[in-house]
């Protein structure tokens, strides 16, 4: 309607190519076509040049036998598996260290962020020193430091530090017994599942009841009782269907059991401590963003300092903290690729390293690796954005 009216008021209908709408659409199409053509040219040129130089292309190499071993694999792997499998092995190792790193960094970060604001002089100074030291040393140096700091003082496998004939600590890693699930263990897992679901319902019910009547319920104790008690009952009923595979010292190394390799430990410590320092600052900024009047009001209502922090300050501080936390999680994930410096077999070391070099297909391998990091980062980012939206202030 509006368009028609304006058209009527004009002296004459302008030519098609003079209309702003038509022009803008035309130029936008032109831009898209131009970018598309540019991308296509680069792609074709690369293919042509690779072919002319006799470099193999395509993803056929993923089905070829890899023929090399990998230090740590979360899925079964040996030399006879394919290059495609090395991709999976590397990806899982990256996800493992990134996931654990995010968990520990968050833990350290929240503790240190709160500690830095503590009214206790020594605690706040210690937190400050931690943050300023670890935030300002390059991560690669920290990784190398922890690697050799962990490795050098530890004894060889034959002189392992032994705890209780179950845990063996040496410069080959921390060996511990691995669980062997026997028949009937499924019931224990089922019991655990039931306990968790029941706990969620109990917590909701208790929350509702407290809102309605003001009566409190011992949710925490009940949940602990359920989650431990129910599986334990199932475990006993089924006749303890679990045994342990103990590590045994052989001529060179330990065999059997589970192992935490020193590369993983060093990388994890370095990533958590480094990123934790940044998260601590984010937490501090979030807490300081909550006006002091809130604390005073909470105190006036008779809330203890712990409850004030948990119920009043943190929920409001989170709104400031979350966006910064997202960036730190993304940084940690990407920084995990520094693993290659100390021989932790992550995606970059295994796939963009050995596999790339053995097959020589740099373009494909690097493209896949970049796509993986992009996908991981976007997933983290999406999750954090969703969480951020959920805890945003709801304005009434």
């Amino acid at each position, binding site marked *: 309607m509006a368009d028609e009216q304006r058209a009527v008021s004009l002296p004459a209908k302008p030519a098609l190519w003079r209309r702003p709408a038509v022009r803008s659409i035309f130029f936008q199409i032109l831009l898209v076509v131009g970018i598309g053509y540019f991308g296509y040219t680069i792609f074709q040129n690369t293919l042509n040049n690779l072919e002319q130089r*006799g470099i193999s292309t395509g993803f056929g190499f993923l089905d070829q036998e890899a023929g090399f071993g990998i230090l740590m694999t979360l899925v079964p792997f040996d030399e006879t598996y394919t290059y495609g499998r090395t991709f999976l092995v590397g990806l899982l190792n990256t996800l493992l260290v990134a996931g654990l790193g995010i968990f520990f960094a968050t833990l350290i970060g929240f503790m240190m962020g709160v500690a830095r604001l503590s009214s206790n002089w020594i605690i706040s100074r210690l937190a400050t020193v931690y943050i300023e030291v670890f935030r300002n040393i390059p991560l690669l140096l920290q990784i190398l430091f922890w690697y050799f700091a962990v490795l050098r003082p530890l004894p*060889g496998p034959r002189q392992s530090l032994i705890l209780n004939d179950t845990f063996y600590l040496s410069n080959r890693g921390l060996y511990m017994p691995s669980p062997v699930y026997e028949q009937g263990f499924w019931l224990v897992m089922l019991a655990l599942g039931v306990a968790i679901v029941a706990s969620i319902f109990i917590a909701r019910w208790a929350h509702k009841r407290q809102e309605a009547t003001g009566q409190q319920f011992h949710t925490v104790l009940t949940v602990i009782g359920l989650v431990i008690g129910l599986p334990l009952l199932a475990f006993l009923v089924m006749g303890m269907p679990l045994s342990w595979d103990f590590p045994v010292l052989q001529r060179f190394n330990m065999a059997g059991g589970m192992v935490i390799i020193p590369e993983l430990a060093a990388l994890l410590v370095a990533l958590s401590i480094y990123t934790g320092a940044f998260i601590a600052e984010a937490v501090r900024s979030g807490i300081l963003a909550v006006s002091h009047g809130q604390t005073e009001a909470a105190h006036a209502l008779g809330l203890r300092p712990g409850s004030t922090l948990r119920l009043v300050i943190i929920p409001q501080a989170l709104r400031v903290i979350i966006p910064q936390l997202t960036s730190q999680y993304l940084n940690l994930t990407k920084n995990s690729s520094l693993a290659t410096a100390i021989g932790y077999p992550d995606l970059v070391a295994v796939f963009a390293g050995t596999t790339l070099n*053995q097959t*020589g297909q740099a373009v494909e391998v690097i493209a896949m690796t970049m796509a993986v990091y992009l996908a991981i980062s976007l997933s983290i980012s999406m999750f954090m954005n969703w969480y951020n939206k959920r805890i945003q202030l709801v304005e009434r």
Partner: protein
Amino acid sequence: MKKIHVIASAVALTATLSTNAFAGATLDAVKKKGFVQCGVSIGLPGFSNADEKGNWSGLDVDVCRAVAAALFADANMVKYTPLTAKERFTALQSGEIDMLSRNTTWTLTRDSSLGLNFAGVNYYDGQGFMVTKKLGVKSALELDGASFCIQAGTTTELNLADYFRSNNMKYTPVTFDTSDETVKAFDAGRCDALTSDQSQLYALRIKLGNPDGATVLPEVISKEPLGPVTAQGDDEWYKIVRWSLFAMVNAEEMGITSGNVDAKMSSDDPNVRRLLGQEGIKGSGLGLADGWAANIIKQVGNYGESFERNVGQGSSLKIARGQNALWNKGGLQYAPPIR
């Protein structure tokens, strides 16, 4: 419309030109910039190593210097790019370096699917193991269950897997980016053994905190012919690299050294006269000056001189000639005749 047509055909033409132009491109580019960009290892005593002033020396470095001497009559017209095993092929494929001389094993996969050409063999090697003496191991076959420090992206990784698979033994690989990191981890006790080409084991042993505490096992589990590499697609450049190496080996066979090359100029031996550019095809076939081989010998030396100076008796490595002796002295070094 006409204009678009012209532009389109111009674009098509440049596209064809730019793709066709790279036959001979490396040689042209090298001549134009006036030096050879040579990929070497980051630091392997005897093969390629920089001193505190940044001067490179070593058996692999001498190949680069020989090519520069043949091309520019000056062995110093080389710039070096230190590369890890992982980076080396990509650097060559992308044209970042003109040639790679970095103890690189010649294999079918590398020769056929990476777009590379191996120009010869300047060191015949084989993979071995280094262990600490206190382990009391006498043979590699006793290493069942041991951990190995290895460098990523090498044939070593593959040979190790093959060896243990065929002998039904278990092993744990601990893989690092550079040989320096490999040595450090071995020194820290992360692995029971370090595995690499035998020549490298001797070179790396020097870097240990206590070199006498480690020993190299007698087994050699693979063939590792190491040699210079060029990118596929420039045959003229490839031949210059190839024949620079051959000239060094031929010179040793004829007894021409950096010391006596000037005196040999007046030799009556037709073989010597052809090598030194006095008669025969001289340098014209390769597009080089006639004295190309004489320049190599004068400035770099023959193969034997280079070997003894860098890895043999004149060096701290003291590696015996063994397989790397000339063919007529019980070794494998053999170069086609210059005629």
